[in-house]
């Protein structure tokens, strides 16, 4: 029997090939989305790879439609021309759709709009408990987070910036099935902090004990803000900063514009006729010894009354002031009455 006499194998209709191509393209889109949304930390450049393959699928689809340079027989004999492939692709598309619909993820992403070069963020669940280990990103390691497979709940989260201090918490982000919470560091906003650093000045500084002294009659500083009253015991020749929590205050003081501060201290010393060559020592004494005292967060316009009192009740010095509107550290000199 000649080859021509053999019965012809039935060719699959062209639409099977096209259907498989459509399913293939759909699968690639779903996979690209899944990887990109939830597994970006583990599979990088997915947009490039998935996008290229998807484009190839679309190209083949267009090519089969227009019959432009298209070999119908070859296509029909290929993997995409088989009806069995359709079954597998339908299964894969279904699986990918389920994965995409049930996977959730949380990512912290560093972006250039950030105020700082590195961040560590605590993610807290609805009850305030850690939802996952703290996320850390920096300008050279920009993404941190993890996916949650088969996540079927909806949890509203709170993001608290552990480091650096001074940032507001982010709330309102909820993690539901299929969602991806991506917190870009550029969205993190600095708190409206108003710290007040009190410098013992004229008539007060010399009265206070130095570090290491054992005063027979120690001093304390009393700070009154509205109904709140704070006492700073065992006061020394030091600058006392108040107006926020400890971490925020430390961060604020660390970020304070030292040049401007030293200029202010220098001008004060010049007014008190301290010779230029002796000013650096005094400025170091003031700026080097800072005592951070945690208080509630002060607001602009808050009235403050500060007094330095020696054991026994004698008021040595103090100041009455209003917390300034500018964000940051306000420097106040405490002087003898």
């Amino acid at each position, binding site marked *: 029997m000649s080859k021509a006499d053999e019965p012809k194998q039935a060719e699959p209709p062209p639409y099977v090939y096209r259907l498989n191509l459509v399913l293939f393209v759909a699968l690639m889109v779903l996979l690209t989305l899944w990887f990109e949304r939830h597994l970006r930390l583990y599979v990088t450049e997915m947009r490039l790879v998935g996008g290229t393959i998807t484009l190839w699928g679309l190209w083949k689809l267009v090519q089969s439609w227009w019959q432009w340079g298209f070999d119908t027989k070859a296509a029909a004999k290929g993997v995409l021309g088989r009806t069995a492939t359709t079954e597998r692709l339908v299964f894969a598309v279904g699986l990918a759709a389920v994965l995409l619909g049930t996977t959730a993820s949380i990512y912290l992403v560093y972006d250039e709009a950030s105020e700082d070069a590195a961040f560590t963020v605590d993610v807290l669940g609805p009850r305030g408990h850690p939802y996952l280990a703290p996320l850390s990103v920096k300008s050279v390691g920009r993404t941190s987070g993890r996916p949650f497979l088969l996540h079927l709940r909806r949890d509203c989260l709170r993001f608290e910036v552990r480091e650096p201090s001074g940032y507001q918490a982010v709330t309102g982000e909820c993690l539901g099935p299929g969602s991806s919470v991506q917190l870009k560091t550029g969205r993190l906003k600095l708190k409206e902090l108003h710290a007040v650093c009190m410098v013992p*000045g*004229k*008539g007060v*500084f*010399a*009265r*206070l*004990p*130095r570090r290491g*002294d*054992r*005063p*027979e*009659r120690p001093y304390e500083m009393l700070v009154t803000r509205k109904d709140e009253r704070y006492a700073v015991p065992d006061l020394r*020749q030091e600058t006392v900063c108040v107006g926020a929590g400890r971490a925020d205050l430390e961060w604020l003081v660390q970020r304070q514009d030292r040049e401007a501060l030293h200029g202010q201290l220098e001008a004060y*010393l010049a*007014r*008190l*006729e*301290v*010779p230029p060559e*002796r000013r650096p020592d*005094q400025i170091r*004494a003031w700026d080097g010894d800072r005592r951070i005292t945690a208080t509630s967060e002060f607001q602009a316009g808050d009235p403050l009354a500060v007094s330095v009192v*020696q054991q026994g009740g*004698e008021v*040595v010095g103090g100041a009455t002031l209003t917390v300034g509107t500018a964000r940051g550290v306000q420097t106040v000199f405490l002087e003898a009455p």
Partner: protein
Amino acid sequence: MRRRVLLILAVCAVARPAAAADLPKVSTAFRVQAADFVANLSPATRAELETAMAAELAARVRQHFAFVDWTASTPGAAELRLTMVGEPRGLAARILLEFGATVGGQPLSLAAFPRPLVYEHWDSQPTNDAPALQARLTEVVRALFDLDDFRLRLQKEFLRAVPLTEHVPLEERLMVLTADRRLVLPLSWDALRARSESVLLVRFLALPPSAAEEKDGEILLRPEAPVRSGSLRGLSRCAVDRFTFPPLDPVGSWDDRVAQLLSPAALRGLRVFMDEYVRDVNPATDGTVVTRPE
């Protein structure tokens, strides 16, 4: 007749007991008045510091001026007082030492005296640290006494006003060795420790024979050596440099009227002062060898 009187005086002088009188006591005191230190140091701590600094002052001044008995613990005929004061300035008070003195209970003006600086107003002041303050004060006081100019001023403005024999009966305040033409102070030569460059000033009030009223006179003495024999042994023998008793013009080293005017009959008052003092660092000699070197 005149010779006979002088002889009697000389014999009387020699016959007196030769117990050396004590040197006049001059007390030292220290006071903390600077407000920041007063506020921070308790009264007990301050008293302790003041006692220690008074002793330090006595030790310093004793090192240079041996002709009085410096004491920090008991009141004396005179007092040298250091007060730590604060002058309010820029950042804090400027801390200074001020000298004050009294002689016989009367304050002496030491307005031109130096006021040594302890702390500038920009210095770190140990207002809560008595040991650190004491160390600094000691340093300042010692540095001050190292200055020739300061010591000269102390002598000129205070010590020359301290009478040396005020606590001795009038007739024993100055004795006459007529034969030697010398005067003897009732003070131990070893204790006085005055070199011959020192000058003693004697101011006296006497009623001259056949005169109607008392007159003031002055004698400048130069300490010479200890009296080496007799009942005055060990006391300070002085040569007369100048004798003034108006209307007599100043006369030279000796005048026969000295013995007359200093006799109990004529003498009405007498005070001896150390006008200039050069301390003898090795006073104890047996004539050739220093027996008690410093």
